[in-house]
């Protein structure tokens, strides 16, 4: 793990990259990293995130700035801009049930080829997917979602990169930390190695490549 500045770490992301971004309606989203993506005008991004938050918050800002080519999310209802761009075909949106989104990201992170979920069977989510019947019950075969980069937000890190999250700001962050080639964590503080008890580490250090400290706190 290496501690870098937001400018340095975002420089590594090329236009057209796929990035996972933690957060639920902006809470648990790495705000500094998102702002730096906007500063550096990264284009044609594929973004995986639970939702597109609000026009002025979370990854909603990336949508408003039209930096996103494709969005994979479970909910876009709180950001009118997302639906507008989708209707104008400026933005491709793949809507995924939230539990399925979590399992697909997890599957990529833990090396599974896919999972069978009852969610979405017999709905339009089934379209184009393989249906597997087991013991008379139907399931959709859902495939892993992997990304080039994961941008996650934790409360704190130690100097090895072990992460601890806070309350409902945990959400998608731990599973995204396993499902991308490069993992960048934004934290509020970095504490000494050994100051985080082993039982309270939420994401082990070996998963984290870079840590940036949110200077605004």
């Amino acid at each position, binding site marked *: 793990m290496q501690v870098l500045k937001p400018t340095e770490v975002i420089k590594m992301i090329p236009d057209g990259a796929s990035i996972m971004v933690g957060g639920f309606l902006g809470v648990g989203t790495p705000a500094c990293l998102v702002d730096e993506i906007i500063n550096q005008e990264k284009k044609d991004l594929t973004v995986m995130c639970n939702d597109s938050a609000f026009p002025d918050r979370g990854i909603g800002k990336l949508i408003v700035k039209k930096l996103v080519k494709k969005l994979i999310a479970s909910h876009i209802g709180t950001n009118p801009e997302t639906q507008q761009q989708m209707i104008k075909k400026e933005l491709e949106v793949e809507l995924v049930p939230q*539990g399925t989104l979590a399992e697909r990201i997890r599957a990529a992170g833990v090396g599974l080829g896919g999972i069978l979920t009852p969610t979405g069977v017999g*709905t339009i989510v089934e379209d184009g997917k393989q249906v597997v019947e087991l013991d008379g019950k139907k399931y959709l075969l859902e495939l892993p979602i992997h990304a080039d980069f994961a941008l996650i937000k934790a*409360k704190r890190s130690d100097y090895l990169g072990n992460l601890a999250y806070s309350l409902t700001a*945990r959400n*998608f962050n731990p599973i995204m930390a396993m499902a991308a080639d490069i993992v960048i964590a934004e934290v509020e503080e970095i504490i000494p190695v050994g100051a985080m008890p082993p039982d309270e580490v939420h994401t082990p250090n070996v998963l984290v490549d870079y840590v940036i400290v949110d200077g605004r706190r």
Partner: protein
Amino acid sequence: MDAKTLIAKRIALELKDGYLVNLGIGTPTLVANYTPKNVNIFFESENGIIGMGPIPQEGMENADLINASAGYVTALPGSSCFDSATSFGLIRGGHLDVTVLGGLQVDEKGRLANWMIPGKMIPGMGGAMDLVTGAKRVIVSMTHTAKGKPKIVKECTLPITSIRPVDLIVTEMAVIEPTKSGLVLKEIAPGITIDEVLRNTEAHLIIPENVPIMKIE
């Protein structure tokens, strides 16, 4: 009593001691205000908490602690937080006793549509598909009609949320239970006649000999 209060009070009677309960965005959240005395309910929010408490006093908000509508909440003593994969594991794994969700339509098979109006409003399914598919008991909280048109219909014209039938529909006019034989009128609201319910319902309703009036204080 206004329609929303009536619905919330009636649904609250369905919650039993020790239940794990998810309340959907909007009117369903009102149910928490009317849970029976001496009954200990654990409210969860799919963004990753069990033991969610009421809205905090002004000045006591925590930026990391929100409900699924991005509103600030509190964490009661004994609450716990977890990631989104675990959260939906609890939901889809049958550990959630009750989910209360809003509805756009419910049809004679008990199937709910509540996540999109094609060409008009595409907020995404968020957690709804997992909640309806996975909860032990699904209760729909909705007005009986929308702009004078029945919402309890022969067959959903809107995309359904799950093929799994809901367990109870509570409106300001009636309590209706989907069964294998069809929709059964279980209770009517105070001051409402069975004829009024029938006039405002497109679906066929089975009317038992005795249809009691909702017991609401």
